[in-house]
């Protein structure tokens, strides 16, 4: 008996192209590393633990599908032809989740509903112009990365998809890459989620670099209690959703999801709130992480463009962070120095991570400082601006 046929995970290593074999081993180790970093909370554990496990399992569990073909029974993201797909759906255990929730963006939308249900738009309604201004400045990465990406050889669609990483919204990146850069959507999305997980650990340093201590700890006195009722918030959700869907129907699923989620929160229907917050959000996040990991199979992901994506993703988020803080400074100047520039980082719309980063950094310097409300306002406006820019990209790129 041929030992290669007995332990096929190992046997296939010798059969495959050495580049792929080495990549498999690297990815197995990377998967293990991600789980470790997730456990240590250096990276976001909600995504990284399933992702790391999936990554190492899928790269280890390669077998001979036939005498000349290797593959896994996890997923096959490349099958598009209907008969083949039906067959794979009955064999590959994660294929149904992939085909029915991932590649059509459903899972991204469910995550977005969950984000809507944990967000308080009150601060968007109290300080709309300030929040929007910061959020727009925090989209710097989304804009500047585009020409850079194109100059580095990416197509219009690929460049747009990578730029959306600067909007710091996982579901948006997934959505954009599925529509505009289908061939690269796996690596783009992985890079996006990887870096987004890093923002919690990395952005504090950006704040400390760009905002001197005296300004970091500026406490903001809450102005007169501007009562924003639930009714107002629901009205906003409804109107904003409808208007944005009218303007950018391609991104309508995302708008609907976020605003519906938020409206449910404000409606007080506890059963629905629990459904979205406890079940939808965590189930979707869990499977999203798992999917991303399992899609990192060496032969799928080995693409020469991946190094470019890694660089561009970093550029996008770095520039957005810088832009956001610059926006914070802008508001600081406009408000006659009565503002905390650190709030700016929250414009990079990783809800609620960046808002928490802003609050944490401010509280570190001045323990009485509470800027979370302003940060959340910017955070959510960030989601809106990213969605708007995504909608524009998706609409414009096919016309180029």
């Amino acid at each position, binding site marked *: 008996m041929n030992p290669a046929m007995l332990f096929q995970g190992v046997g296939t290593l010798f059969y495959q192209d050495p580049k792929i074999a080495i990549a498999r081993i690297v990815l197995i180790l990377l998967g293990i590393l991600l789980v470790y970093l997730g456990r240590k909370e250096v990276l976001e554990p909600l995504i990284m633990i399933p992702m790391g496990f999936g990554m190492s399992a899928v790269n280890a569990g390669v077998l001979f599908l036939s005498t000349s073909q290797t593959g896994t029974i996890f997923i096959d993201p490349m099958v598009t032809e209907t008969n083949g797909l039906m067959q794979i759906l009955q064999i590959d255990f994660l294929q149904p989740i992939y085909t029915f929730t991932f590649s059509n963006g459903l899972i991204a939308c469910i995550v977005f509903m969950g984000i809507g249900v*944990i967000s*308080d738009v*009150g601060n968007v309604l109290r300080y709309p112009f300030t929040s929007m201004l910061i959020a727009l400045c925090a989209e710097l990465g989304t804009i500047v990365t585009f020409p850079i990406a194109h100059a580095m050889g990416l197509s219009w669609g690929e460049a747009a998809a990578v730029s959306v990483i600067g909007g710091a919204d996982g579901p948006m990146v997934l959505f954009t890459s599925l529509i505009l850069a289908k061939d690269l959507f796996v690596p783009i999305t992985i890079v996006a989620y990887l870096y987004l997980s890093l923002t919690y650990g990395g952005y504090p340093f950006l704040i400390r670099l760009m905002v001197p201590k005296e300004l970091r700890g500026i406490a903001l006195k*809450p102005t007169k*209690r501007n009562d924003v009722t639930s009714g107002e918030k629901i009205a906003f959700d409804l109107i904003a959703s409808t208007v944005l869907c009218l303007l950018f129907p391609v991104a309508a699923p995302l708008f609907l999801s976020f605003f519906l989620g938020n409206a449910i929160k404000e409606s007080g229907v506890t059963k629905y709130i629990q459904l979205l917050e406890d079940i939808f959000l965590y189930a979707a996040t869990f499977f999203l992480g798992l999917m991303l990991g399992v899609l990192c199979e060496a032969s799928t992901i080995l693409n020469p463009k991946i190094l470019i994506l890694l660089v561009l993703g970093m550029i996008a988020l770095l520039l957005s962070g810088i832009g956001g803080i610059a926006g914070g400074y802008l508001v600081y100047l406009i408000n006659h120095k009565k503002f905390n520039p650190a709030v700016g980082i929250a414009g990079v719309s990783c809800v*609620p991570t960046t*808002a*928490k980063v802003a*609050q*944490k950094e401010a*509280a570190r310097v001045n*323990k*009485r400082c*509470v800027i*979370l*409300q302003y940060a*959340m306002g910017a955070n959510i406006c960030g989601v809106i601006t990213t969605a708007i820019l995504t909608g524009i990209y998706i609409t414009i790129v096919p016309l180029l």
Partner: protein
Amino acid sequence: MGELISPMAGRVQEIHVTAGQMITEDDELFIIEAMKMENAVYGDPGIVKEVLVKVGDKVEEDDVLAIIE
């Protein structure tokens, strides 16, 4: 007579003071959890007259947490 108000909306996670207690500027009086993050609430020095919330209560920004003299 001063009202200690909550600086943010969230859930009262921990209460570190009781009625009659004397507090200083540096004491952590309450822990409010918002967005899965813990935030400590500080007050001005004085004596706690009354604590108006209990652990698990949902509070809004500007809600009165305690009365301090």
